Structures are given as structure tokens and as C-alpha cells.
């Protein structure tokens, strides 16, 4: 049940729910200063903690050393949101354990020794935490974590100390963007300890009206409290986004539908598509699908299309590295192909 290929609750607006926790192994230096030997030891310990555990979960995991992947293969994992760009930066010492359903991934030697995450389609943070919590317990059966009574889980950066938890929800918010309400929403959530980022994390732009809403604070509240405040905020944003979509549809029905159909038209016929333009058009089509204007396409198909048309996926598809211009041409070809299969 990968977030890309499965529909989840509220998937018209919430694309995925992800929880990440940071853990370090007691007594070992953090990855940024650890020797190659120590890093290797960390990889072995974490690998064994999962693959040699008694849990039935462990049978579903594959171990991958990043050193054994080429650059494109590494970025394919980034584009599927299974690993972070930071892990790729440390490819020489980094590894990852992934479950075959592409729900859980355990990054080894990222900023912290262990960063595990669980990603579910749609809006289901509680379920993601339930599963991740179990995986955390399995790892802890054989590994002692760096933990302090007052500060909680000790992390390489003090901004993650405490629960080490970052819960985030990837939301498609074209209505709030079009009505200009997005800034006030983002401003409001920042007051309750939440933050919004673009599709590619900190500092990146919200391509295709996609925002990642996540908690900023990790020390003080419990894991459940963090998830619960995020749940409350996300529910309200969903409500606001719905109202904005309705308002847009009612205030200028023809114009609204025209924009959506034109976006589909361009995607179906363009010969060149930059990532930016592709994401913008896809956003309109996604909106049209959710509003019942476009039939015969669903959110899952659009998720798959979105991921397939990211740079690393395109390079893997063609089988070689390409310039930005070439990528734009190949992207347009791929989009045409995929859409012609559907309708």
C-alpha cells in the first residue's frame, strides 16, 4: 500500500501522511563526525536489528547500501519520498532498509544514526505512527538508544531532541492558492507550532500547489499530542480548501472548468514540459478530478504520473542522463503516452 499507488482517506486533498523519528545508538559518535568504521558498525547493527529480529515484519524488509546504487537509482528513492536528499549526500556511508510495500523505510547514517519513517496514502497519521512505533520497538530490542530522562531521545541537532518526531502531511491546496488564502493559513499554523514547506522540503517552493504541513516542536508534547494537533490543523485546512474550491467553482464556473480542461489539453498534447509547468498543469487536472469535472482519471493515476515524470524517474526510463531541455521533451512524451492509455 504505497502512498503513490493507493487511495487513502481524503486523498482528494491529502496526498500522503508521513511520520519520521530520529534515533541514535548509545555511546557512538553521531554520523557527522563518526569514522568510516563506526559508520559501518552502525549499518551492521541496524541491519541486524531488523533482518535478524523475530518479528514477522522483518521478513518484508530489503537492505540497500547506497554505495551500491548509481546516482539515478538514489534519486528515484528520493522522488518516491523513501529517503531524504540528505541521505544521498552521505551515500558512501549510508544505507536504507525498506519494506516491500514502500511504507516503512529506515535510513542509516543520515543526520542521525537512525531515521525511520512511515508513509501512508491520504490522511492517516495515527495509523502511520502505530506501525512506526512497532518498528521502533523491534529495533530497540537489540539496540540501546541515546536517551536522556529530561531531553528524551538525543539527536544530532537540538531541534529534533525529545520525541525526535516529525509528522507531516502532504496536501494539495490549489483552492487556497487561487483564492490567496494560503498565506493566512500558513501564518495561522505557524502560531500553533506547525510549519509548511514545499514539495522538496525546507526552502523549496510549493510546486504544483503541494504543501507539506508538519510539527516544528519535538520536545515537550508527547507523540500522540503532536499527531493530534496536526490532525486538528489538517482537518481545518481540508475544510478551508473545500470551501475555497466551491467558491471558485461557483463564482466563475465556465472560467474554472475552462482552466481545468485546458490544463488537461496541454498535458495531452505538449511537446515540451518543464517540471514547473507539468506540476502546475497536473495540479489543475487533480483539482478537476477531485471536483468530478474530469472523469476516468483518479488520484492514484495522477500520483503515479507525478512520480514517473520527476527527473530521476525519467532518466531511469530512458536509461541515460539528460540535460534539462532533453528532460522536458521526454517528460512531455511520457505524459502523452500515459494519458493516451487512460482515455
Amino acid at each position, binding site marked *: 500500500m504505497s502512498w503513490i499507488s493507493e487511495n487513502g482517506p481524503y486523498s482528494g486533498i491529502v496526498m500522503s501522511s508521513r511520520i519520521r523519528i530520529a534515533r541514535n545508538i548509545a555511546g557512538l559518535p553521531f554520523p557527522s563526525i563518526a569514522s568510516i568504521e563506526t559508520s559501518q558498525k552502525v549499518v551492521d547493527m541496524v541491519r541486524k536489528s531488523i533482518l535478524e529480529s523475530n518479528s514477522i515484519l522483518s521478513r518484508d524488509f530489503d537492505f540497500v547500501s547506497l554505495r551500491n546504487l548509481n546516482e539515478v537509482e538514489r*534519486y528515484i528513492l528520493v522522488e518516491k519520498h523513501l529517503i531524504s536528499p540528505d541521505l544521498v549526500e552521505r551515500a558512501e556511508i549510508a544505507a536504507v532498509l525498506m519494506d516491500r510495500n514502500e511504507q516503512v523505510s529506515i535510513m542509516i547514517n543520515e543526520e542521525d544514526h537512525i531515521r525511520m519513517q512511515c508513509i501512508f496514502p491520504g490522511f492517516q497519521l495515527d495509523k502511520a505512527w502505530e506501525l512506526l*512505533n512497532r518498528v521502533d520497538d523491534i529495533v530497540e530490542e537489540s539496540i*540501546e538508544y541515546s536517551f536522556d530522562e*529530561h531531553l528524551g531521545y538525543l539527536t*544530532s541537532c*537540538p*531541534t529534533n531532541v525529545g520525541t525526535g518526531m516529525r509528522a507531516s502531511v502532504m496536501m494539495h491546496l490549489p483552492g487556497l492558492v487561487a483564492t490567496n488564502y494560503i498565506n493566512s493559513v500558513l501564518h495561522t499554523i505557524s502560531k500553533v507550532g506547525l510549519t509548511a514547506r514545499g514539495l522538496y522540503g525546507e526552502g523549496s517552493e510549493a510546486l504544483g500547489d503541494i504543501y507539506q504541513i508538519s510539527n516544528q*516542536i519535538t520536545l515537550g508534547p508527547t507523540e500522540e499530542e503532536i499527531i493530534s494537533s496536526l490532525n486538528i490543523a489538517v482537518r481545518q485546512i481540508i475544510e478551508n480548501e473545500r470551501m475555497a474550491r466551491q467558491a471558485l467553482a461557483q463564482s466563475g464556473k465556465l472560467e474554472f472548468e475552462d482552466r481545468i480542461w485546458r490544463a488537461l489539453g496541454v498535458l495531452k498534447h505538449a511537446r515540451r514540459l518543464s517540471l514547473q509547468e507539468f506540476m502546475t498543469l497536473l495540479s489543475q487536472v487533480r483539482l478537476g478530478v477531485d471536483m468530478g469535472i474530469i472523469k476516468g482519471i483518479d488520484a492514484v493515476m495522477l500520483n503515479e504520473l507525478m512520480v514517473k515524470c520527476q527527473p530521476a524517474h525519467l532518466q531511469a526510463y530512458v536509461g541515460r542522463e539528460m540535460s534539462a531541455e532533453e528532460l522536458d521533451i521526454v517528460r512531455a512524451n511520457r505524459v502523452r503516452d500515459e494519458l493516451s492509455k487512460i482515455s
Partner: protein
Amino acid sequence: MLCQQCQKRPATVHFTKIVNNHKTEFYLCEECARQKEDFKAFIPFSINDLLTGFLDMDKADVSVRSPGLLKCKTCGMDFVQFKKVGRLGCQDCYKYFAEELAPVIRRVQGGTKHTGKVPRRAGVGLRIERQIKQLKAQLQKAVEAEAFEEAARLRDQIRELERQLGQL
């Protein structure tokens, strides 16, 4: 997406340049963006900068100690280095830089006390350590009161708990 320039790192900086009505868009990683004169003003500041800012802001409060000389005795990370990279070297850094980190943690976090999940192993250890502490206080009292039988019993209990602690 990858940086247009190096095709290696992820693009995190987006910039649109308009010259004579001709629009050019750039998607670059921070490193390549830094090298481009045009982008200097547009680079989003990082968490490191923010942390460093907080550390400097609170300098006045902690001037009793000279941060330049502070060093973690376990991993050797010195405080100046930490301020540069924003990443600690090991778990003991939290102990050696406790005074300097406290105001930063107060600022970036909601609280100063962890209330969430406790790992089972560390949790067991914590409980036993607390118990040992209590028993040692009782032992002290028993010795002072010359209740030697009671003291011997407490001593055995402490030894047993210390043995358990050693096995964790």
C-alpha cells in the same frame, strides 16, 4: 528535482530572471546558487544560521564560561565548531554544553522536559537507577542508626540491582 547546474544535488532554490521581457527560470541547489552572483539575496537561511543566531543572542547570559574553550570530553567536539555546523558530535555533547544549549532548546522547542515515549531498555535502566539512589539513601541512614542488619539487607539489594543494571 535535481539542480540544473550540477545535476547532482537536489534543487532547493528557485529563481525567475526577467531580462528584456525574456523569462528564464532556474532550479539550483544551494551550493551552485551561492556561486551565482544574481542569487545571493535569495538564498533561504538555514537552520544552522538560526541556531547560531540564538546561541549568539544568549551569549551575554552565559558569559561566565568562555565558549571558545568548551569541548566535549567524549568526542572532542568544541563549541565553536558546533556553532559553525549546527550538529552535535555525540550524546555527551548535551552534557558538556548543557548550559549553552539550554537557552537554545528553550527557544526552538515547546518545552524543556520530554514527556513522550521512553525506550524500554533505557526506561528499565532509569527505573533501576532511581531505585538504587533511594536504597543508597536508606543505607546511609541505617548505617548512621547503627542498624547493621538492615544495612546488610539494603547492601545486598543494591548489589542485585547493580548487577541487573550491568546486564542491560
